[in-house]
């Protein structure tokens, strides 16, 4: 152990062969994984929930979470085999040879230790000197202030972006050869995310690091990674240079994934992947994707396809890869482009809403005015803290505005939903962000969907249930789901049930509050598809609240851009996204990662210096 140089020489920094990680009962979480990476390159690992990407990422440090074990294969970093080593030796290598940047720095930093001390701890753990100078260098390396005052802060005194930079600093402080980053920008707002991504690129370019970047966000990977590996159900299904894999995906799953990614400049009709990703226990014997695959043949279900090499230095795990059709983006046909009538359905006049806590008052909306016509889709776009959710809650009667009016068909609505007439309550329905919260765990799906019809339409129980069954079909869920409880459904299925429930009383306006933000990208596309179809069939007006420009671009007719409760810009989709007038809009557009070319004034320009990072996030 002592005396061996820790720096990688020439040759691949990372070499993984035949990796297999199992649960205690023998079921594989990850299998048949081969990876390699040389210095100064970024490898992206992409997958949705359950794909095994985090388990793979941790395995690159020779680590498995309790309950899982490294059953077979080898992980060689910098020429050193990690599998089979005793824990004590592995501990020495972690941090010095290969290090890890976690997904959520808020919980990964010790809340009782000053950040300077935490950095010093990593150094001391490897018997390296931990002088003040070293700490300053470590902080400066990630563009954080390197003064004593900053180093003496506790994690809760930093913003999310600063915390993430500290986590990166900790990963770099012992100068490893390989850094594994696990979705480090999840939960950060778009502008901060852009600056962290710029940081990662700088580390690759200036320090020559080899970086493995794990994410579910293909757009981020597109901007960052040189090579790409797509994972599904614990296996790598496609691998190759990023640009090529994304422009001509060969595996049906990769293709489905790319087709479901919203892009706000090259807008396309979002297509989801039919079916649901299965859990570990129910993986089919052959190709794991076969049940959902439009190209499957009988042979696909018999044996797991091997990863085969195809031209262009790429690998695909599919026997029918040659039949995979090229990407053919279809321009979106959002249903809500045109208003269905002259008078506005919903009018918001000079809305002012605040959040009052014991010590302060945060303004969520200041003088916001807009209208939504029948059948129209209007989007409220902004970062977290912009007030968009609060506005939605005011309209549905869940939050009392401090000033201003909300009118439905010209009549002023009471602030509280309980004070509104039944008709008003029926015609405005809201769907929330968190699919794991939106349904009552103790009620069967059918009962949950039937309830609003009983309450607001006065339907009898049987009539409402018949209604509910029809709605289940409309949201493309099998009728059998009606008997189940929410715990048995996936996130995407639950959101569709929430949509069905909202439609149960035949509303005129649907408020969608970030309804797909918590879903995997392909699941998001399915839900949006369902929503678009419903809108076309029923002539619904939709107020769509989101922070994701790409999603908004695929469905909205008009857009309002919000910053800290103030409307910065509003107009038709084309006008706002194509020719933004306000500075904030331009920054948002510039910072949003895209699959294709960087947008004009792209992330490099939008990347802010770390010291400019705003303080800890205000209350939503």
């Amino acid at each position, binding site marked *: 152990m002592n005396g061996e140089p820790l720096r990688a020489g020439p040759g691949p920094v990372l070499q993984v062969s035949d990796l297999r990680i199992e649960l205690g009962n023998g079921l594989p979480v990850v299998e048949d994984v081969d990876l390699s990476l040389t210095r100064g390159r970024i490898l992206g690992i992409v997958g949705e929930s359950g794909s095994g990407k985090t388990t793979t990422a941790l395995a690159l440090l020779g680590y498995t979470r309790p309950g899982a074990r490294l059953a077979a294969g080898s992980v060689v970093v910098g020429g050193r085999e990690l599998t089979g080593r005793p824990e004590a030796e592995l501990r020495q290598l972690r941090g010095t040879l290969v290090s890890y940047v976690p997904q959520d720095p808020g919980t990964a930093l010790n809340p009782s230790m000053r950040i300077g001390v935490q950095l010093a701890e990593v150094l001391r753990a490897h018997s390296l000197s931990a002088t003040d100078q070293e700490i300053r260098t470590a902080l400066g390396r990630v563009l954080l202030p390197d003064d004593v005052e900053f180093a003496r802060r506790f994690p809760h005194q930093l913003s999310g972006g600063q915390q993430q930079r500290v986590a990166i600093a900790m990963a770099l402080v012992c100068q490893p050869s390989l850094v594994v980053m696990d979705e480090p920008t999840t939960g950060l707002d778009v502008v901060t995310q852009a600056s962290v991504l710029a940081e990662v690129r700088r580390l690759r370019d200036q320090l020559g690091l080899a970086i493995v970047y794990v994410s579910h966000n293909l757009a981020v990977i597109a901007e960052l990674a040189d090579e790409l590996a797509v994972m599904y159900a614990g296996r790598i299904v496609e691998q190759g240079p990023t640009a090529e894999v994304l422009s001509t995906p060969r595996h049906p799953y990769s293709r489905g994934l790319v087709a479901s990614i919203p892009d706000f400049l090259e807008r396309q009709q979002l297509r989801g992947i039919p079916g649901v990703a299965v859990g570990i226990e129910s993986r089919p014997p052959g190709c794991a994707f076969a049940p959902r695959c439009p190209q499957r043949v009988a042979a696909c279900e018999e044996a797991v396809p091997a990863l085969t090499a195809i031209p262009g230095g790429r690998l695909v795990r599919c026997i029918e890869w040659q039949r995979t059709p090229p990407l053919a983006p279809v321009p979106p046909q959002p249903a809500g482009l045109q208003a269905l009538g002259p008078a506005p359905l919903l009018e918001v006049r000079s809305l002012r809403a605040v959040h009052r806590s014991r010590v302060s008052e945060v303004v969520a909306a200041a003088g916001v005015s807009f209208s939504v016509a029948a059948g129209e889709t209007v989007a409220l776009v902004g970062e977290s803290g912009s007030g968009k959710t609060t506005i939605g809650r005011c309209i549905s009667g869940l939050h009392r505005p401090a000033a201003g009016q909300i009118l439905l068909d010209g009549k002023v609505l009471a602030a509280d939903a309980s004070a509104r007439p039944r008709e008003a309550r029926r015609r405005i329905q809201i769907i929330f*962000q968190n699919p794991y919260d939106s349904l009552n765990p103790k009620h069967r799906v059918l009962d949950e969907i039937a309830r609003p019809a009983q309450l607001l339409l006065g339907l009898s129980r049987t009539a409402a249930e018949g209604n509910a069954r029809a709605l289940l079909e409309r949201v493309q869920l099998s009728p059998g789901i009606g008997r189940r409880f929410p715990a048995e459904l996936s996130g995407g299925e639950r959101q569709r049930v929430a949509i069905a429930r909202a439609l149960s009383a035949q509303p005129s306006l649907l408020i969608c509050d970030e309804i797909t933000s918590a879903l995997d990208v392909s699941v998001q596309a399915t839900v949006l598809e369902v929503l678009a179809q419903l809108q076309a069939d029923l002539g619904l007006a939709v107020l769509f609240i989101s922070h994701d420009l790409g999603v908004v671009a695929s469905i909205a007719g008009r857009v309002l851009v919000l910053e800290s409760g103030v409307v910065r810009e509003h107009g038709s989709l084309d006008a706002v996204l194509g020719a933004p007038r306000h500075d904030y809009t331009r920054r948002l557009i510039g910072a949003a990662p895209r699959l294709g070319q960087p947008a004009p004034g792209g992330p490099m320009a939008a990347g802010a210096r770390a010291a400019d990072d705003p303080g800890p996030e205000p209350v939503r």
Partner: protein
Amino acid sequence: MIAVGQRLGAQRRLRFARSWSGRIGLALTVSVVAVAAFGPLFAPHAPTALVGPAYAAPTGQFPLGTDELGRDVLSRVLDGGRSVIGYALLATALAYVVGAGIGLVAGYTRSLADPALMRLMDVLLAFPPFLLLLVLTTGFGSSPAVLVLGVMSIHVPGIARIIRAATIETRGRGYVEAAAARGESRRAILLREILPNITGTVVADAAPRLTVSILLVASLNFLGLGVQPPNADWALMISENRPGMTIQPWCVAVPALLIIGLTVGVNLLADAVARARGTSIDEELVRR
């Protein structure tokens, strides 16, 4: 292989411990409750009848001997469980009815009723529990009614707090807000949406709380401030027969073992139930 093998072994051992301790707990609890509930049917003599010399050794006629006044220990043992378990159960159940009511109301309302109720609960909670029983006994006399109401008052603030916290947490959930947005009545929201989702909290809280009730009731009975002589009660028997412990240990040992069997059994059960939910009774202990 990495030393994950060790970790897996530890996990397996944990599961093993969990399963047998839960089963032992269940067995203990059920046996003692059976003795308490059905014992009186099998008592050979009346529990208060004087049937022999004091502190007589066990014989065929008196399998556990006699106590300080010459009453049959076996009969008293068979009869003496109901007061311990019965009053503890009653007090805990009443406490849930009152406490849950207060907690639900305080948790759901946004009016001043919430802080007002909770300040009242805080005052009660600030009182050392056993002391409250002693004070109430001084003022209102020693009787089972005072005992039950006193133990109930000890539990109510803690239950109210827990139910209130669970209500507040559930109130923020999407499905509750959806119900509010469609204008469901307050009553409908509390009963249809919120209440069914806090039963888990109640169950987890109930078992350790029952142990506390049993301990309180037994302790007060031991001091002679709850159930009064000549009634048969396990704890009272222990205190009555202590002076003769050396001569005739059975009249102290048997009720003592029964009480311990009950409390340890309920505790083990509570722990097994809590662990099945992924938590542990220690969190309930802390919350009181």
